[in-house]
């Protein structure tokens, strides 16, 4: 005799269905209707079961739903690398399924975050290859860093650069979760990653704005479940959630449809929990727990630069720092358009080596001094020599940190390049000279083995004076090459 729990639809409202029956159903269990519509249990009350549909269709009262013996889970395995999947783990890139399923495992989407005993101190830097970030606002392996900024401020291109640059590190797996983006944007991201070869170590969890809200809502959970699989295999995983503002709106839509009490800006009371519950799945883990790390970059698009919104302040509160992107900086040609004065990394600095840290300290202090002096300089025709030097150095730093898209700079090259700010190399030249010769110096560092070794040795130095003295030895040689 076959026994199966069933339930009848009492009522439905768009993607939400209330069922009567299913006496032992549990949260996150999957149910299926007679017409093949799948749904997952979002809430269970004394007299009804609340189900969110994952497929589009019409549900009429009295329609029969059967309990499947599955819960919300996906099939995990090495086959995911290079694939584009939906939040239920179904590949949507048109490629065939892998035949080797021997190592694949099922895992629930909504799991508890690893506890403190499973975690270890964050010690390693997550090298992005972008000088401005690695030097001034460094990200660590296992850190949660919010990417926040206006629309069209270069957030997406920065994130794609980040994924592309990870090709240099074979132990890194990137997971890009597209949360309710327009189909054309999802397609374009997939094409860029494919054409640059970045898909080799990337998994894309894609949901478009035309998908049902319950499916879009699951995208970040799937991203973390996939990330945990690779982390447990010792990989350093980068999770990008693009973006959580849309995720919050989707959750608001689900909650309001389900008659949950609206709170601030009509978001439900548990919106902070929803996001922090996700964020705490990131971290650096002990060898007993797989040994890998999960670095999380949630993205939040601001409305007209308003940083004080409910969701953005929530996200700032639950992450270890943020990179603030500004549309006006991008229109000035800054790339990446990060406002360093209001960006912060609370964990990354502890992972930098001493030389990097000293250099970052010097640059930060230089930028702060220059900011103050620049205002004064507008009112004075003649400025003291020292003031001019500081303003000039600030311009040099801005020019040196302006980085072309899809370029990777190793840490030693970053230190070499930014260290030149404090030498005589660019002081007596105009900014166009810096612009012209930046690429020449980078090229030289790549081709000249001796210079590259010299740059690597710079990382063993301690102070900014040591760095300046060392770089002054190669400045005459560089001046002969630069034009």
């Amino acid at each position, binding site marked *: *005799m*076959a*026994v*199966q729990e*069933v*339930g009848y639809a009492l009522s439905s409202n768009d993607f939400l269905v209330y069922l009567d*029956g299913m*006496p032992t159903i549990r949260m996150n269990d999957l149910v299926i209707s007679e017409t093949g519509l799948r749904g997952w249990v979002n809430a269970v009350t004394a007299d009804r079961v609340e189900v969110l549909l994952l497929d589009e269709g019409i549900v009429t009262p009295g329609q029969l739903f059967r309990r499947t013996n599955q819960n919300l889970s996906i099939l995990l395995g090495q086959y995911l690398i290079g694939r584009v999947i939906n939040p239920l783990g179904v590949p949507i890139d048109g490629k065939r399924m892998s035949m080797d399923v021997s190592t694949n495992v099922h895992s629930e989407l909504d799991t508890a975050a690893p506890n403190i005993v499973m975690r270890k101190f964050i010690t390693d830097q997550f090298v992005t290859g972008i000088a401005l970030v690695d030097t001034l606002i460094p990200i660590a392996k296992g850190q949660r860093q919010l990417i926040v900024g206006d629309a069209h401020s270069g957030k997406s291109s920065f994130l794609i650069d980040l994924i592309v640059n990870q090709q240099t590190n074979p132990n890194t797996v990137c997971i890009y979760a597209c949360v309710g983006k327009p189909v054309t944007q999802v397609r374009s991201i997939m094409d860029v990653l494919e054409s640059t070869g970045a898909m080799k170590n990337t998994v894309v969890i894609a949901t478009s704005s035309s998908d049902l809200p319950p499916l879009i809502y699951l995208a970040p959970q799937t991203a973390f479940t996939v990330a945990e699989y690779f982390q447990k295999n010792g990989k350093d995983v980068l999770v990008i959630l693009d973006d959580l503002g849309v995720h919050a709106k989707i959750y608001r839509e689900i909650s309001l449809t389900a008659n949950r009490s609206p709170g601030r800006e009509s978001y439900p009371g548990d919106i902070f929990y929803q996001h922090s519950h996700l964020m705490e799945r990131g971290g650096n883990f002990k060898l007993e727990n797989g040994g890998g790390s999960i670095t999380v970059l949630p993205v939040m698009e601001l409305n007209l630069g308003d940083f004080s919104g409910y969701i953005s302040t929530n996200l700032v509160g639950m992450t270890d720092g943020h990179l603030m992107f500004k549309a006006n900086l991008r229109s000035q040609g800054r790339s990446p358009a990060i406002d360093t004065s209001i960006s912060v990394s609370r964990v990354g600095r502890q992972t930098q080596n001493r030389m990097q840290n000293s250099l970052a300290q010097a640059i930060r202090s230089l930028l702060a001094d220059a900011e103050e002096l620049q205002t004064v300089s507008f009112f004075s025709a003649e400025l003291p020599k020292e003031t001019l030097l500081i303003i000039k150095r600030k311009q040099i730093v801005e020019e040196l940190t302006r980085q072309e898209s899809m370029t990777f700079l190793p840490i030693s090259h970053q230190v070499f390049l930014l260290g030149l700010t404090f030498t005589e190399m660019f002081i007596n030249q105009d900014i166009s000279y810096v612009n012209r010769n930046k690429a020449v110096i980078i090229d030289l560092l790549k081709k000249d083995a001796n210079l590259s070794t010299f740059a690597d040795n710079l990382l063993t130095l301690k102070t900014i004076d040591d760095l300046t003295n060392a770089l002054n030895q190669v400045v005459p040689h560089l001046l002969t090459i630069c034009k």
Partner: protein
Amino acid sequence: MVSEELEWLNSYGVQFLNLFQKETFYQSFSQIDKMVSELQTLTIYLAFSANPESEKQIGSWLRDNLSTEIVMDVKLDPSLIGGCAFIWKGVYRDYSLRSKIQTNRAQILTSFKTFMAEKTK
């Protein structure tokens, strides 16, 4: 109104019909609605279309053996092949021939193959 329906209504007596006066009409219906919603439904799936006589037989058996406060819902599902299945308190129990075949699928296939092999000898 057909005579059969009139007969059915009259069988409830005058006292019951007096509940549906102008003043008490809505209240009576909401009370009946509440009572009906509290009744348990037994859904029975049959492989054949049951005639009224069979339904009556099943109904009286249920009232005699289970409870008088029960709603019976008979549905047709030819894929059962034979036997029946029913839903009671949110649990579907399949006592059909289809279920038996599915459970003993391997055994049936083996027997069938053996039979075919012997026949082709």
